[in-house]
């Protein structure tokens, strides 16, 4: 009985000194974070609020914004068919990316991650498109997609094989898939690299143990490799979705969102109104909507994938 208060006192003492030291440490940490925080506030937070402010004006970018119109810009955007089309296109790109592009990257990562001859060569080749600038990629694929079989590589092959040439970038039903092919070509290497890094972190012993227990390579992949890659896949999916929402350069270079908005994405829609039509207030409102969508996705995604990797597997 005597013992308890003393222990308590001691504990409290320890807690207090620890608290003191912790506070000190934290002040030091805060001071070190300060420069970054200032830059973050100045170049990220401030522009966001500035855009929110501009988005409530009918403003062309010349002189100060004076024509206050409240939420009219938002109402117009959310009821605009073209914007809804852009959202639909983004959803198509996300679905195809998650359904085709990432699995492809994963399969290739597993292949070039093995001890196969020439694997480092293939690794480099697969990663090469990602190194190329987006504008170059866009122009190159425009040449490949050219509707004239005597000038476009893809159509010339199709004609040789006896197919009808396809106007890849001019057909309103085809264009979004043509752009998806280019996106896949450009970005699968990046995701492959992510998976490769993840694969290297899986200890060989686990796979060996499983093999000794009689697991074949397919079982090995689904029960060992895939679950242990969970956190990498999580990152890769996250980046792929955000990248799709913000996709701009390739689309703008190749089709300008056309023909007739058939390949419009939210970002090209924003640019069309902000910098082609100079309706900067309207463009700002689009930017804010995109920001909110990205934000919602990020928070939801984090909440849904919070469980530890070894429980969910993904």
């Amino acid at each position, binding site marked *: 009985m005597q013992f308890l208060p003393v222990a308590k006192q001691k504990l409290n003492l320890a807690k207090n000194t620890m608290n003191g030291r912790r506070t000190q440490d934290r002040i030091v940490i805060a001071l070190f974070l300060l420069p970054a925080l200032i830059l973050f506030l100045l170049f990220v937070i401030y522009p966001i609020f500035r855009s929110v402010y501009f988005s409530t004006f009918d403003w062309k970018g010349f002189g100060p914004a004076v024509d206050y119109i409240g939420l009219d810009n938002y109402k117009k955007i959310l009821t605009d068919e073209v914007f809804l089309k852009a959202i639909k296109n983004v959803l198509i790109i996300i679905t195809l990316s998650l359904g085709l592009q990432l699995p492809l990257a994963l399969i290739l990562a597993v292949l070039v991650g093995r001890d196969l001859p020439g694997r480092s060569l293939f690794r480099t080749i697969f990663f090469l498109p990602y190194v190329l600038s987006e504008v170059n990629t866009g122009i190159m694929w425009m040449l490949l997609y050219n509707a004239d079989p005597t000038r476009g590589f893809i159509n010339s092959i199709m004609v040789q094989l006896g197919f009808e040439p396809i106007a890849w970038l001019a057909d309103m039903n085809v264009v979004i898939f043509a752009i998806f092919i280019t996106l896949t070509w450009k970005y699968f290497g990046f995701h492959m690299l992510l998976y490769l890094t993840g694969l290297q972190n899986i200890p060989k012993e686990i796979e060996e143990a499983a093999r000794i227990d009689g697991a074949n390579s397919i079982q090995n992949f689904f029960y060992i490799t895939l679950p242990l890659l969970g956190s990498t896949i999580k990152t890769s999916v996250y980046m792929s979705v955000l990248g799709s929402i913000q996709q701009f350069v390739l689309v703008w270079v190749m089709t300008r969102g056309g*023909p007739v908005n058939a390949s419009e994405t939210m970002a090209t829609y924003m640019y069309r109104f902000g910098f082609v039509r100079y309706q900067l207030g309207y463009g700002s409102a689009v930017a804010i909507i995109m920001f909110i969508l990205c934000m919602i996705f990020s928070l939801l995604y984090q909440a849904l994938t919070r469980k530890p990797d070894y429980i969910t597997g993904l």
Partner: protein
Amino acid sequence: MNRKIFVLLSVLLAATFMLTACGTAAATEAAAEEPAMDDTAMEEAPAEAAAEPVTITWWHISTKDPALSDWQKMADDYMADHPNVNIEITVLENESFKTKLTTVMQSGEVPDIFQSWGGGTLKEQIDAGLLKDITADLDADGGAWRDTFAPGALAVFSSDGENYGVPWDMGMVGWWYNKDLFTQAGITDTPKTWAEFLTDVQLLKDAGITPIALGEGDSWTGMHIWSYLATRIGGEAAFTAAADRSGAFTDPAFVQAGVELQNLIDMEPFQDGYLGATHDEMQATFGNGKAAMELSGQWAPSVEAANSADGVGVANLGMFNFPTVEGGAGAITDVIGGGNGFAIGKDAEPEAIDFVKYLTNVQNQTIIGASGTGIPVVKGAEVGLTDPNLLLVQQSFAAAKYFQLYYDQVLPSAMGGIINDAVQKLYAGTATADDVAAEIEAGAQEQIK
């Protein structure tokens, strides 16, 4: 609890730190500025006599020779004659120029001289108080400077009779055609009416030739056919009424323009994949002899050659004016066009205006004629024109009684995109002529005030 207090504390700390940082920085800046300002104030009085140093900022978009070095040389020559003047040239690519100009204009900092196409965008800049009225300079000495210009071209850079800039060159859009392919299809004379035009399109198709090259991926290329039809059908009156809002873009002239364009589109006269083709690809198709015609500006001869496989382009090139539409109010001589010029920023010194005066003298204007970059706008400078294709343009231009500035330049800046996007739907078959007119009118009601 502790944690919350701590977070609050660090935020407070950060805030105070920022405030002090800003405070001191601003203070030192002000302190540093003050003596500097005194210096200039003190120097100003005596310097008045001995030519005070002046810096002129000039932004232009001629990224290629010969215009690039021509303009640099003109600036160098001027600086040699005026040692106190320093001309800082900023050369920007077209799109980045527009973006950068918009950005600096938000802060009210405008270059002294910058590239402009006049019309609606210029008017918006004038309304925002960003430009300088140079009417007095034009009218000085009994209008000596004003009288050197072709009046139509000068008017493009004015608003309510006041000039805020001057033209540099002018151009126009017309049908460029491949004479050999026309002969091959048995066409002996260029079409004068829309009906003849459609007949010729059919003749070309029958001969297995693609009649028209189009780059509708850059939607403005196809918009020109629509705007020309509207000009031929409604004439000056219809457009003026729609633009000043006494009429509308749903008026019969604009709807009929859509219907006539639809008639053309229904004949499938364009190359495969024209909906996704760029302006360069359209020029390549025409330049490679794969299509008989294209509706394009005075730049067509050089651009189709540059984009063609052999770099030479169409061997037998000709141009004809857009045909008249039966019963339309517009004449065959009316042209749609536009050109480059210089707008004068609100803070421009008298030296900047003097330099622009120098730039647009007959001598310098003769140089652009001679180098084949454009049609000069100063009287007497057309003697420099030697290129036969540019002479064609110049003759059409000189014969024009009504000069219609490009729709996307005469109207407020947003209207260009609205019209382009609306007309593109006709080409894609997703809208009727009525829909297109209604969409443009809806945009106009919002944008033209």
